[in-house]
């Protein structure tokens, strides 16, 4: 199944990107948008309830989340949280810097811009937002992003919204969230399901990523999150959340397609077995008696801790629970995962498993089958748990299995590193949206005209232009764009230095220094400009750049002159260089005599020790070569 005919299966996919913006405050309060790993200053406990959407209906996502019965605990910080983040103060005026960034992106995505912005509440019951909803401002729709092939991928929505709190851990039915990330401004970009194969998904993600990173956004791990929406003909939209790396995309898409195909096969099989919805019943049987003298250590051990072994019939599911729906993952495993997430109950056993591995005897299996009145093609599932939790778990099993009759249930799944995915929650529908009653509408007015005046070029256009104008590789141009330093690059090249040198300094050199752990964020534009000015006047050699940057990073209050003093980087005159070379050769005359031309390396090394950074390395090597040649020729004569 490695080659999937994407056209034939009616594959459709879209992307949803959440990118944090680089701003000085949060979207609806004045707190600083920064993360922390400190110990929390305070903890707040909350519970959530479903509420009606604006159209008077409950959203299924909320009902299912409520069914999880979670206690939510927030970790808060006095330094970076205020009472808004703990849902104790109404929102402040939105951060217009954030809205402007989103408007700019919407323009670059050729979108229709909303004239009067309405703040909406997107209700979430998982606890990730203390007020129970994410405040979202819908700024644009009906745009597109062009792929290199010329195909246009439609953009459904561009929203400016607040980021949710960070999930830290879950202990049983208690889930912990940290409030640092909550409220950091985000742009959400959702594409239409226009990608017709994984390559187009990849290209779209790449272009959107490039576009985002060339605007005012946060950088680093966790600041961008990509979700995938995948469906096939007869299947349903499934949202794969948390795609960390672009490399995962293809595998994830493939495995999701396989899953949807497998689920549709289960549907067809159930239909051919004449299974109908009414046959699924919440008829749970207590089977403790069957196992009261069991040899199974697994069952015995669990029954010691828990009250009941509760079993249920799954009509027509024999052989289907064991069906592989993703590489190495059977439908039964999917059910077990779902049960754990929804109820906390672990260790679901189903009849397509090998009972021997649990030490359960054939007789026990048969008696259980009789108790449940199993007929041909029927399967069973059991759990060992506390009575209420066990019933809850089996309700989830019956509900989910019943959905097999419909095909693929629309849901949100977490992307896993191995390319598979795991159920996390029901897909939220439009019924979870509600107008934010705490904020009046915002009129865009002339903000848009101002943004239009300074609108940058699309990065894919810009990289081509830069490559041509500065005669640099397109990949290098892209790196400059991604570093967000195009204006600085243009300013510095204007001084009259080599564009390649400027580009590598702004991208590779600074990245290398950051990787070494130097605080490169201390290096300001003025620092960089002063270095390149000195370079253009030949006051320093290009080899000195690295050392000077290190000093600036560690002490940004230094001036260029001070750094040169510290490095004793006065320039060396040509005469002094020649004098130095002559001295070195004289001292190492034996070496020169014995090695001849091959003495260049060692001699060059010794000279460089003295002259590095004071004079261009090219000149040094040229002069060393000249002098060596002169000495050696003299020797021959």
């Amino acid at each position: 199944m490695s080659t999937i005919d994407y056209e034939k299966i009616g594959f459709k996919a879209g992307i949803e990107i959440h990118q944090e913006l680089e701003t000085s405050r949060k979207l609806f309060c004045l707190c600083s948008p920064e993360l922390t790993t400190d110990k929390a200053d305070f903890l707040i406990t909350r519970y959530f309830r479903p509420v009606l959407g604006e159209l008077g209906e409950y959203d299924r996502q909320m009902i299912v989340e409520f069914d999880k019965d979670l206690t939510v605990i927030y970790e808060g910080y006095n330094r970076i949280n205020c009472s808004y983040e703990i849902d104790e103060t109404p929102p402040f005026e939105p951060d217009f810097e954030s809205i402007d960034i989103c408007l700019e992106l919407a323009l670059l995505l050729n979108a229709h811009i909303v004239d009067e912005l309405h703040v909406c509440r997107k209700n979430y019951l998982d606890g990730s937002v203390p007020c129970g909803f994410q405040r979202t401002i819908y700024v644009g729709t009906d745009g597109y992003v062009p792929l290199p092939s010329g195909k246009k991928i439609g953009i459904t929505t561009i929203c400016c919204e607040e980021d949710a709190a960070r999930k830290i851990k879950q202990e049983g039915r208690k889930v912990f969230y940290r409030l640092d990330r909550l409220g950091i401004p985000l742009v959400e970009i959702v594409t239409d399901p226009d990608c017709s194969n994984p390559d187009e998904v990849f290209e779209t993600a790449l272009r959107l990523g490039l576009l985002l990173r060339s605007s005012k956004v946060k950088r680093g791990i966790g600041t961008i999150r990509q979700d995938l929406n995948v469906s096939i003909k007869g299947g349903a939209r499934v949202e794969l959340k948390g795609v960390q790396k672009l490399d995962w995309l293809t595998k994830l898409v493939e495995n999701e397609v396989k899953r949807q195909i497998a689920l549709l096969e289960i549907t067809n099989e159930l239909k051919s077995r004449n299974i109908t919805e009414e046959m699924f019943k919440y008829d749970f049987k207590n089977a403790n008696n069957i196992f009261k003298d069991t040899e199974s250590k697994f069952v015995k051990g669990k029954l010691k801790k828990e009250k009941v072994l509760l079993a249920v019939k799954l009509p027509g599911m024999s052989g289907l629970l064991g069906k592989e729906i993703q590489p190495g993952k059977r439908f039964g495993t999917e059910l077990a995962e779902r049960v754990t997430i929804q109820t906390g109950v672990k260790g679901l056993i189903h009849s397509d498993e090998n009972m021997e591995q649990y030490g359960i005897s054939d007789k026990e299996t048969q008696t259980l089958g009789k108790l449940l009145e199993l007929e041909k093609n029927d399967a069973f599932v059991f759990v060992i748990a506390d009575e209420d939790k066990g019933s809850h778990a089996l309700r989830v099993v019956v509900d989910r299995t019943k959905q097999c009759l419909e095909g693929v249930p629309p849901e949100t799944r977490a992307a896993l590193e191995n390319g598979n995915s795991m159920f996390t929650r029901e897909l939220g529908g439009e019924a979870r949206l509600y107008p934010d009653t705490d904020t009046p509408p915002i009129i865009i007015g002339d903000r848009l005209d101002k943004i239009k005046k300074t609108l940058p070029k699309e990065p894919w256009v810009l990289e081509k232009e830069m490559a041509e104008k500065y005669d640099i590789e397109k990949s290098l141009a892209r790196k400059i764009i991604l570093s967000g330093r195009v204006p600085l690059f243009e300013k510095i090249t204007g001084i009259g230095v080599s564009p390649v040198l400027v580009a590598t300094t702004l991208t590779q050199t600074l990245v290398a220094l950051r990787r070494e752990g130097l605080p490169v964020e201390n290096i300001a534009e003025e620092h960089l400009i002063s270095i390149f000015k000195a370079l253009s006047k030949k006051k320093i050699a290009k080899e000195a750049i690295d050392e000077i940057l290190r000093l600036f990073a560690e002490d940004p209050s230094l001036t260029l002159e001070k750094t040169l003093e510290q490095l004793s980087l006065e320039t060396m005159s040509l005469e002094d260089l020649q004098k130095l070379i002559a001295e070195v050769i004289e001292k190492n005359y034996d070496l020169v005599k014995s090695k001849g031309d091959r003495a260049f390396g060692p001699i060059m090394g010794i000279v460089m020790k003295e002259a590095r950074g004071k004079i261009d390395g090219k000149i040094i090597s040229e002069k060393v070569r000249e002098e060596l040649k002169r000495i050696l020729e003299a020797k021959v004569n």
Partner: protein
Amino acid sequence: MAEDPLKGYSGEAKTILEKYEVKNWSQVVIETTETTLTGTILPRSELADTKHITLKLDTGYNIGIPIDTVTNIKEIGFEAVEYRLPKPDVVLDPKKPRIVLLGCGGTIACRLDYRSGAVIPALTPEELYSMVPELADIAYVETRLLFELLSEDMKPEYWVKIAKEVEKEINEKNAKGVVLGHGTDTLGFTSAALSFILKNLPVPVVMVGSQRSSDRPSSDAVINLINAVTVATKSDIGEVVVCMHGTSSDNYGLIHRGTRVRKMHTSRRDAFRTIGDIPLGKVQDGKIVMLRNDYNKRKEGNVFADTKVDPKVALIYTYPGIHADVIDHLVDTGYHGIVLGGTGLGHAPIYILDSLKRAIEEDIFVVMTSQCLFGHIGMNVYVRGRDLLTMGIIPGVNMLPETAYVKLVWVLGHTQNKDEVRERMTTNISGEIIDRELFNAYFVYQAETDKRIEKILKEF
């Protein structure tokens, strides 16, 4: 009168919607000079401009479309929406104690108001019940709506109406407890008023509100209601109390005496605090822990609603720069009483003394309280206090200014005799005056946890 099909729209926006023959809740395709949008036309806030149409897109988001870009609107469907919680799906157990839940409006019953775009009280008590079906596990709760009021619109006439309804529920319908949903802004005033009006209460009257409206998943209404019904059902209290969140977390509720409670924060869940004393008790997960014993107990018998009130009373803060004409005006317009929230121990500036003197000479009762809220007034300590006392100002002991105001409204409804009014205003009637102020009654007891306060104290 039928509701306006274009509610909220006026001016140009209304004209254009009428032109294309569409109304609120029409499902439409709108063509503009830039794009084509499909969605549902929503009622528009009257406070917003007249140049936009509010549209709910199929994705659920709302946007405003400038009418000058609209080139065509086509109706493709219509479905009027009613925001009503479904009928409660619970079975009432008639063997459980009969509790009545009376709704007076407020955030606890709030939902979206299209006229303003903000929230208004609109949920019926029955809907509240639908939201919190757990109430059926605690008691046989009957619900009834008295008013749909914003708390700030409350007035003494309504206190009287509520008191009479409570009296009827207890005496005629044998309620074992009464819960009163009320807006939080003036909840403390009403709780004080009912404390004076309801004489010989045999059962608890528990007032409850919420700080987050019930249309939010994070609403505190749910736990507050459960706690309030628990107190009304299970506690041995025979008083008017307020039961609200004790902390910002959804853990325990505090039970406050009706005359000592005050809203101390504009928006926090734990805004309500007992001032100058410790709360009566604590309620969590169906269990009540009483923190003190000096309260009236539940008993047999009938309540009597002593509803005589005189609303011609004013409550005035004194402040540096206050003009004497603030007082003069009250005298000239025939007020019968003035409660002053004086500074510190109960002081008023020299430049309003003449006016106060004139007020008292014209038989207006002037009661002094302190805007410090915590602590007794002490009008013998400084010369100004003594001057005021000599003038005939009635010292309000350590009553909260709002409670003193409510009490004067009630007392003046019964007597305008100088000595009697003075006597009643300075004597405790319903727990409004505390004889012994305890050391731990100053904030600390009601903080999130004592440990946290300890930590803060250590750090500074």
